[in-house]
Structures are given as structure tokens and as C-alpha cells.
């Protein structure tokens, strides 16, 4: 959204044919890197971000002035150790942090694309990001890692480019968006669409934003990232800066105030149309369907070593959906490890300080790099 700060950008010259049938070319991919690429170029890790993430994985995000979204996991000495590995992360196409997205202007019309932007898929996103390998002259990534929608991109990437990664780490994700996942995304999209400021997606050129609708979308989604137990422990029925209930529709409860805050800060950093496009891409994701319903076929060509991680309290992408990927891989004798991490922090566990998770991730990477 903010273009005043100089974002690192790769302009992809080559045409990219999208699943919707349209072709894009000369489009930007905004990326960031951490650590340094060694001489053998065998220490690169491509990190894929989730729905509302961006390329600023760790350290200070120059746009939001907040810590990067995966600061617990990525950095010097951390699970993904940037003293050792070269970490690349790019904003997905359809996003709003510099990569080609609906808030960009159409050069032909000089108008913001809005909902005239092509509908994208996870497949389109990884095909676009694949260009980063050539850009850095990397023949094979040491690892591809991502949680949630990042995990879906990991699965799609290794399916599309089976010999381009040595290790593959999909975290808290699924190979196919469930009816429940689609339902929650639709709730968010309808919240945006029902904000009159949205105006069928044509708000950018009028310098207004559908902030109310986008905030409600974020509030609803935020609930799905937490567990019931986590919410209960953190908030319970605690009241917000008051002695008693007020018999009004103010935020009496701390949880209400917390959600309202989450909604309000989100609208400052995220574009409503990007939210529509990216949630749509997630809903369309069904990797097995791309292989006539046989998920194993998606991984038949790869010799990569997989490590799949889920969390006990994640009800958005529950363990069973992660295990279905393990089962598909075992069915073809792939090299796959799996662990379900105990955590009360819900789907968000992968972003938080969950030591068993971070240790497992670190150990897997470091041991695999030695081999």
C-alpha cells in the first residue's frame, strides 16, 4: 500500500499464464532477504507467507514499524538461523506490499485494477515466486517453509517444481480448503462487500477505504486463529476498564475491545481487495483435484524430504488435514516426518513462541543441512 519506502522488487518480464486464463507480464514481485547466500548457493530457504503476511519476515517491518510476522522463528540463532541460511520471502501476487495486486494501476486505463484484477490461485502465486530462483541464481533451494496459506504454497511449489527443494516444511495447513474454511473466508468477503465504501472494489481512486467491512473481516478471521481455551485463559469474561457491565453495546468485555483493536490496526496495513483476492485463492486450493483426486500424484516426482507439523488446538487446519498429507506421501514411500505439537494457542501457534515447535523446526533444518 505504502510505496514511499523503497521495496526490493523484481520485475518479472516473462509472461505468466494464470489459471483463470489471463496472462500477465512485466509485473513486480516485492521481496526481502535475510542472511547471505553462500558460494555453493545451497543454503537458501524460501519462506511463504500466510493470508495477511508479507515479505518482512523478521526484524522491523519498515512499513508497519512492527516486528516481522515470523520474528520468533527467523533470525540470527533462531529456528531458521539467518547466520547460517539465506532466507528469501516475497509478497504474494494479489497482495498489497509491493507485488502485483489489485491496488496497482492498470497502465492502459490509469485506473486502479480493483476487482478488474484477475482472480488468482495458489498455483499462480508460486509460479510467480519461482522467478526468484533465477534472480538469485539458485538451482535448488535448501528448504521451502510456510504455515497456513504459506504451507499450501509449499505443497504447490514442490508439486510444480519437484527437484527445486531439498526439504519441504508445510506447517498447520491443508491440501484442500474445507467447507468451514471457505465459509469463514466468505464471511470476511461479505463483510467487505457490505461496506458502502467498498463500491464494488472501486474505492482506491476515490481515496476512501472500506475500513469497517475490512475490520469486521479481520475480527471474524482472528477468532479462527485462536483456540477456545486460549481465549478463555486470556480474556475470560474480564471487563474492559470498567467495574460492571454498562447495559450498552460498548465494548464491555476485554475480548470485544481486543477484537475491535485487531480490526482497526489491520485496515491501516491491508488492502480490502487484496483480502478478497487472497482468500479466494485459498478457497480454490485443492491440490488433490489437480491430480484427479489422488493427492499422492502431486508428490510422485519429488525426492525431497518432508516434515509436516500441526498443532493440537488448531481447529482451522486441524491435525487430521495435515495428516492426510502425510498419508498421501507415505502411500508413495516418500521421505516424510510428522509431529503434532501440543499448544493451546490455536492456529496462530506457528507464529508464536512455542518452544517444542521452534526446536523441532530448528533440529530438522540443521540436521538435514548436515546431510
Amino acid at each position, binding site marked *: 500500500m505504502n510505496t514511499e519506502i523503497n521495496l526490493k522488487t523484481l520485475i518479472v518480464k516473462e509472461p505468466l499464464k494464470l489459471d483463470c486464463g489471463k496472462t500477465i507480464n512485466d509485473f513486480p514481485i516485492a521481496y526481502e532477504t535475510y542472511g547471505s547466500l553462500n558460494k555453493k548457493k545451497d543454503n537458501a530457504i524460501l519462506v511463504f507467507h500466510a493470508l495477511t503476511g508479507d515479505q518482512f519476515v523478521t526484524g522491523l517491518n519498515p512499513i508497519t514499524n512492527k516486528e516481522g510476522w515470523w520474528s520468533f522463528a527467523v533470525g540470527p540463532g533462531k529456528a531458521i538461523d539467518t547466520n547460517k541460511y539465506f532466507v528469501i520471502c516475497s509478497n504474494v501476487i494479489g497482495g498489497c506490499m509491493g507485488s502485483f495486486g489489485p491496488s496497482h494501476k492498470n497502465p492502459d486505463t490509469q485506473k486502479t485494477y480493483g476487482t478488474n484484477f484477475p482472480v488468482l490461485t495458489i498455483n499462480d502465486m508460486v509460479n510467480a515466486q519461482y522467478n526468484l530462483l533465477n534472480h538469485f541464481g539458485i538451482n535448488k533451494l535448501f528448504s521451502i517453509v510456510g504455515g497456513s496459506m504459506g504451507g499450501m504454497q509449499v505443497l504447490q511449489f514442490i508439486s510444480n517444481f519437484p527437484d527445486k527443494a531439498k526439504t519441504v516444511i508445510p506447517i498447520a495447513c491443508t491440501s484442500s480448503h474445507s467447507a468451514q474454511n471457505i465459509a469463514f473466508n466468505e464471511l470476511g468477503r461479505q463483510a467487505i462487500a457490505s461496506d458502502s465504501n467498498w463500491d464494488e472494489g472501486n474505492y482506491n481512486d476515490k481515496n476512501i477505504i472500506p475500513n469497517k467491512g475490512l475490520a469486521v473481516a479481520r475480527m471474524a478471521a482472528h477468532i479462527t486463529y485462536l483456540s477456545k481455551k486460549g481465549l478463555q485463559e486470556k480474556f475470560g469474561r474480564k471487563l474492559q476498564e470498567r467495574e460492571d457491565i454498562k447495559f450498552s453495546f460498548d465494548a464491555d468485555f476485554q475480548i470485544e475491545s481486543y477484537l475491535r483493536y485487531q480490526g482497526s490496526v489491520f485496515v491501516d496495513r491491508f488492502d480490502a481487495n487484496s483480502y478478497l483476492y487472497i482468500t479466494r485463492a485459498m478457497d480454490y486450493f485443492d491440490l488433490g483435484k489437480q491430480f484427479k483426486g489422488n493427492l499422492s500424484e502431486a508428490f510422485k516426482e519429488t525426492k525431497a*524430504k518432508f*516434515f509436516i507439523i500441526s498443532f493440537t488446538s488448531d481447529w482451522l487446519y486441524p491435525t487430521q488435514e495435515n495428516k492426510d498429507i*502425510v*498419508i498421501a506421501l*507415505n*502411500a508413495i*514411500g516418500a*521421505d*516424510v*516426518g*510428522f*509431529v*503434532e*505439537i*501440543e499448544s493451546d494457542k490455536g492456529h496462530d501457534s506457528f507464529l508464536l513462541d512455542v518452544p*517444542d515447535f521452534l*526446536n*523441532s523446526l530448528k*533440529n*530438522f533444518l540443521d*540436521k*538435514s543441512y*548436515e*546431510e
Partner: protein
Amino acid sequence: MKNEFKVIADLIEKNKRVLDVGCADGTLMKFLKDNKNINIRGLEISKEKVQTCIAKGLTVIEGNAEKDLKQFPDKSFDYVILSQTLQAFLDPEVVINELLRVGKKAIVTIPNFGYWKVRLHLLTKGTMPITKTLPDEWYNTPNLHMCTIKDFVHFAKSRNFKIFKSLALNNQSASIINNSNLGIKNLIADLGIFLIEK
């Protein structure tokens, strides 16, 4: 590494594909990987032990032998190992059939309830036996279906499993079990090791 694992390792040729069911902290897996170039996988129910294995660079899946063996295709491993846990399953016969479906061969070890110390304990003390291989009290033991070496041999025969090798282990040494010495081995061994095929 315990003697049992050395005996198991000796039963497996180099460069094979092996699944260790209930691999615990991966000691046997690591030995097979490092010393025999085995393509080794593990299945383990404890999250903590799975994490220990991952820290050793071993490929392990968190799961339960009764439910999670079914994801592996028929004969997808040369050997499947089950060390001292058959007696702890609700339905050992289902598990052993799964082992023999997934593996071309299975290596199963059992704590021998016919071991003389076990018999003596029950005979003289009249309480449930506690030995090195059976360390738990009756009320907290995971073991549901204890058997003797003789029981296992009879079971394998009744189900037409081919027994390639039966070994009796006591403390130091392993020795071959055959039809003529079954009775005595059943008395002097605290562990039975069987290489079987269906």
C-alpha cells in the same frame, strides 16, 4: 545399545528399507542408518520421543501402530520391527497382520512370560512378576496380552506365519530356538526375537 537391538540389527542386511514401529528415542534407527545404510522410518506415539528422533535427524511419524500402519502400502518395507510392544496392544493379532502386510518380513520381540524368574516370582511370592523386562506393577503396566515364547511360536504356526528365525535372549547371549529345545528356551530366555513372514 541394548543387546536386543544388536541381535535385531544382525538380522537385517545392508541397504534395506525398514520401518521401526514404536521407535522410541530412535536408538535402533540411528544405529541401522549409520552402520547398515538402512533407509529407515519410524512410527512413534509419544510427541516427546518424536521430537527426540527429529533432533537426531531421523524420519519419524507421530502415530499409533493400531491406527496408523494402514497408511503404508503393502510390502512397502523390507523389514518392519516391533520391539517389546506387541503385548501392549488391544488387539495384537490385528497389529501383527498389519506388520506382515506392510513389511515383506517382520521382526517381533516379546518379553517372555515363561522365563524362570517370572515363573518363580509368581510361584513363590504369589504376586504379579516384576523383572527387568517387566518392570511395572499390575495396576500400571501397559501390557495387556502377556505371552511366552512357546505361546508365540504356537500362535505363529496356527496362523501359518513362516518363522525364519527364532532367537532366545538372556542377558548376554542369543541362541537359536528350534522344535527340540523350545521348552528349555522358554524357561531360560527373558526375551524372544522372531523373524517372520506371511
